[in-house]
């Protein structure tokens, strides 16, 4: 297994470098950065000044390696707009996004796992159909729209929760619910199909023949095997949720990394945009690795392979 991990790690590093390069190229897409920073009313002199100040007059490959070198040390430069170090900005906002993501995942698992198991046990009954319908609805729902609806219903009409901002834990409730909606359908379907397959397997028949209790058969024998791919996917889903949080943070004005990204894009704050893309991509890569690791740990058949 060690060999397998080492190979995954090498690929992960290569991918990280690729994304680094891509995100560098991303901001250079719009052509002359100096003009964008200077704004529409700047004179030629101003533009030249800016070009020199930000080191944009150096050859492209020099800029690239300079940035790469610094990025590897965690130095993402200064934000054009916020006038502080980019790294610090991200560090400040990250806990909020992380909390949101983890809460979203937690809610998603609490809903998807029991429903998936229930649907599998009652396969092809109306219970199963209803659960599948819930999955369909969740998949079709635009997250920002759901967020707005919840705002109107729970925030305004019922007055239960605050509409926006980051104050207390209550501010996280609606955004987490909306975020979880994106993960629930796939997690639920995966749990359901995994359980159906597990319950139809020969070892479940053996467990029944041994006279084990229903609960033991369902959870200890059935779910233990069905859970393996679910856990692995959950790690990946967390990544998607962190990526998708940009929309939800913006709707609910939660000052996380996603909101930061949106602000920076609107203000052409390139260092921040570059850094956020990179950080998110690194988190994705890390979570995918974690998912592979979890798979290997949970499935004894892979461990000695």
């Amino acid at each position, binding site marked *: 297994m060690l060999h397998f991990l080492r190979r995954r790690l090498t690929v992960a590093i290569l991918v990280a470098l690729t994304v680094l390069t891509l995100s560098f190229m991303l901001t250079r897409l719009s052509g002359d950065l100096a003009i964008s920073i200077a704004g529409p009313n700047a004179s030629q002199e101003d533009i030249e000044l800016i070009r020199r100040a930000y080191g944009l007059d150096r050859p492209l490959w020099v800029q690239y390696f300079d940035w790469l070198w610094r990025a590897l040390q965690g130095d993402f430069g200064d934000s054009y707009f916020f006038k502080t170090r980019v790294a610090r900005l991200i560090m400040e906002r990250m806990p909020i996004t992380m909390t949101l993501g983890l809460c979203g995942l937690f809610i998603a698992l609490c809903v998807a796992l029991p429903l998936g198991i229930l649907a599998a046990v009652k396969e092809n009954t109306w219970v199963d159909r209803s659960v599948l319908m819930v999955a369909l609805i969740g998949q079709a729902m635009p997250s920002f729209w759901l967020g707005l609806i919840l705002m109107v219903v729970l925030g305004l009409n019922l007055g239960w929760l605050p509409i926006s901002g980051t104050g207390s834990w209550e501010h996280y409730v609606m955004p987490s619910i909306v975020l979880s909606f994106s993960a629930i359908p796939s997690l639920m379907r995966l749990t359901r199909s995994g359980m159906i397959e597990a319950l139809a397997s020969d*070892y479940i*028949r053996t467990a*029944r*023949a*041994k*006279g084990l209790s229903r609960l*033991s058969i369902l959870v200890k024998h059935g779910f233990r095997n069905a859970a393996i791919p679910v856990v692995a996917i959950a790690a990946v889903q967390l990544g998607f949720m962190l990526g998708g949080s940009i929309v939800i943070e913006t709707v609910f004005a939660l000052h996380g990394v996603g909101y930061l990204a949106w602000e920076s894009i609107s203000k052409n704050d390139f260092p921040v945009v570059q850094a956020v893309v990179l950080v998110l991509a690194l988190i994705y890569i890390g979570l995918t690795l974690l998912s592979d690791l979890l798979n290997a740990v*949970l499935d004894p058949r892979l461990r000695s392979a």
Partner: protein
Amino acid sequence: MSALLEIDDLRVTFGGTAAVRGISLTVEKGETHCLVGESGCGKSVTSLAVMGLLAKGGKREAARLSFAGEDIRDYDEKRMSRLRGDRMAMIFQEPMTSLNPAYTVGSQMTEVLRRHRGTPRAQAVDRAVELLTRVGITAPGLRLGQFPHQLSGGLRQRVMIAMALMCDPELLIADEPTTALDVTVQAQILRLLAELQKDLGLGILLITHDLGIVARVADRVSVMYAGKVVESAPTAELFRAPRHPYTRGLLSCVPVPGKVKRDEPLGSIPGVVPRIPPGFIGCAFRDRCGFAEAACAADIPRRNVGPAHEALCILPEGARA
């Protein structure tokens, strides 16, 4: 004294199809009763029905279904699950897939004892070691900590047998236990089962399609065809004087060294096993039988044709093939 397992007129249906159409047999303590038939004749379904392990949609009815004198026909899942693994145990055909890949051999074995007897872990482990040794597995301590995929097919089947014996059952139902194994391993497993029966006084219901196995281990044989037992007899008697044309056909298919002449075709039974529609009356074998007559389309009575020997056929004695 009642037999260990008594089945009388067992019927199993799945939706509209009748898989088992009224079979009767008994298994005595210390006896091996073989249920023989081709695939699809309903023998596996019979064993599952006895254990109460039918798949969803399966319905079971019987005039009599008793285990050690208890009528288990109306036992709900809870009561049946207390019997299963404890006093009646079952082993299956595919040792490869019948063990849970996520748990060690040891944990899968000890959980049976802990479930039924509440035995503390340490003692359950001791018992598991004892049984693994009994079934001929070396280094049992090592095996307990291994996962199923680390064992070979023969080893896995031995583990299944040991696991079935954890609570010292009275009845062991073995559904084609050697079909998925190599021939040499087959012989070992059969020998093991015979020894265990002698030592523990087990009653064994052995399901198989292999007449060679029947000849080797069975005390009594029931031959099944299309959901019914068409002949049953003590083993020697069945091989000596088979009465039902199907049984005769089966026996003629098996080449016996010394008896078969060279350059002569092996026996075979023309036709295929039919699907039985509901409301079917008469002998299911009549389309393939060389002796069929008009009377075969009516209900066939069970006839006594020898010492403890019954057949479901109207053929008189002495009819030649």
